[in-house]
């Protein structure tokens, strides 16, 4: 369970103070497939950054399974992210010098998995996202959609409690978007993996089972389908 209580994030822009997240109270249960939507500058990314522990809230709390992670010191937060949160980035952000398989294995290496387990899991995950036959290719040899599928596999590799995906389909064509959403939806249903997206892509919104709309850092609507 992910919970935010009176979450605020204020940025300073010169003398101006900008409330990117404004008093957000939110509960996301395990196994949800949630989209946070809203126009540019509405605070979607900042809210995800706070939930993922990349940004510290100005005040308020982020609690994950009862642990208040918003008060964690930097090093503890890094370890928490490694073992509990999967990230999918808009620009894929794979390491260009590693193959698809090595990109997936790397996060498991950080966690200390042995070689056999890494091999097994990375192969399984690549097959899961339909990239089993491209495991040795480097990111430059893959299309955007293929890279994003590898990124999803990498996010899953650490066996996270939930996956945060910021605009995962923003750089993809419609076919790649459909494939990616199919994969994530299947993983959510079959393996009960929690997905939280930020997006303003209608195709993502259509597939989400819960849609939270933000405006000026505040939750305007919260609809479950």
């Amino acid at each position, binding site marked *: 369970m992910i919970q935010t209580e009176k979450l605020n994030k204020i940025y300073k822009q010169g003398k101006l103070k900008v409330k990117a997240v404004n008093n957000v109270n939110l509960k996301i249960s395990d196994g949800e497939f949630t989209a946070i939507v809203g126009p540019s500058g509405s605070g979607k990314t900042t809210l995800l950054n706070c939930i993922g522990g990349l940004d510290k809230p100005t005040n308020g709390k982020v609690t994950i399974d009862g642990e208040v992670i918003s008060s964690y010191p930097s090093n503890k937060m890094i370890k928490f992210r490694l073992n509990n949160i999967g990230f999918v980035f808009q620009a894929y952000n794979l390491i260009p010098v590693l193959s698809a398989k090595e990109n997936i294995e790397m996060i498991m290496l950080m966690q200390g998995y042995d070689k056999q387990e890494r091999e097994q899991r990375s192969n399984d995950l690549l097959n899961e996202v339909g990239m089993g036959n491209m495991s040795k290719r480097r990111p430059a040899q893959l299309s955007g959609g293929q890279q994003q599928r590898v990124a999803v596999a990498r996010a899953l590799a650490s066996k996270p409690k939930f996956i945060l*995906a910021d605009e995962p389909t923003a750089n993809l064509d419609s076919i790649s978007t459909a494939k990616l959403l199919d994969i994530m939806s299947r993983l959510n249903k079959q393996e009960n993996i929690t997905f939280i997206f930020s997006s303003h892509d209608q195709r993502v919104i259509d597939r989400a089972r819960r849609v939270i709309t933000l405006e000026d850092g505040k939750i305007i609507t919260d609809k479950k389908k």
Partner: protein
Amino acid sequence: MNLITLIKIGWRNIWRSRKRSLVVIFSIILGLYGGLIIASLMITLNDQRMNTAIKTYLADIQIHDKKFSEEYSLKDTIYNIQSIEEKLKSDKRVKSYSKRTVINGMLSNATGSYGVNVLGINPENEIKVTSVYNKIIEGDYFTSKRPNTMIVGKKLADKLNLQIRSKVVIAFQDINGDITSLLFRVEGVFKSGNSMFDDNNVFVKNNSIFSNLPDLKGYHEIPILTTNSNLTEVLKSDLQNISNSLDVKSWDDIAVELAYANKMISSFLYIFMLIVLCGLSFGIINTMLMAILERKKEIGMLMSIGMTKWYIFLMICFETIFLSLVAIPFGILISYITVDYFSVQGIDLSIVESGLENFGIGTVLYLKLPSEYYFNLGLLVILISFISSIFPAIRAMKINPVEATKSI
């Protein structure tokens, strides 16, 4: 995460921008090459200067009477020379020795007068100790049957306009303190490679000295060549124990300036190379900072997914060290090939002959470089690379993952 993965990522990262990495690698190779070749030149110049001095006149060890060393008086000959000779003949560390008389006098001819050091030698024995016989450029090395012949240095010959068979007069104070003059004819002209020595020293036969100075009964100087220069100090101390009246000196006691240069050269070279490599380090720092700037997003992503700052630091350090690890073998190899080639072929520096001769150095340099310089300079490059990596690595650690990735 284990170190092997970090090493693997670091290694691959340096080949992401091949051109940039190759520029740094080439600059390290050139820096290393330049440093090693200059070290080799300096060591060779110093060694050649030292060897010229030892082979031409110093030998490894010289024995004098203590009083002679202080006053340079003709009467202060070496006491009990037979027992010293017996010791020298039986000692396996002694390769050869000779006996010299030494007179400080004034050499004159129609052109002018000049203060010289007259070294009386037994030509056959002196051949075994010093190499003046090999440096004759005009005339002969004591082959004439005439009694009073002399060989002079090229510089002195030019100064006094001396030709073969020219007559010269040497005036000096004899044993009784009276001024005595002896007439000699020039039999040969030598060029030792040390113009200062050639300017001040002449060789005559001991027989000529003894026949003209019947009161002089002994020798003033015993130059000794050892079988191995490392034995010099031990032999010197053993010879000193023969008698307190002896003044036994090794070459570095006699030619203090040569010994000082020899001791200082290593420190000087390392300081010089450190300066060269410090200059190089700025290039490395600049390249790594550019690499980090380019990969800001990727580093931010690594931090986001859970790579600690310490691992980020190590990754950047590995990348920098790898650049030097690639460059070092090439730098050492081409330096070694160059030194090896010129150790046989020699570098002809005859265009600066007169300048080199003033320092007692020949015109052809046969390069040499002790192996420890290759090793130590290689280590120094790795150390400098590591130090150069610290600043970029700290910059990488300070990257804010949120700003770097712009989004999660």
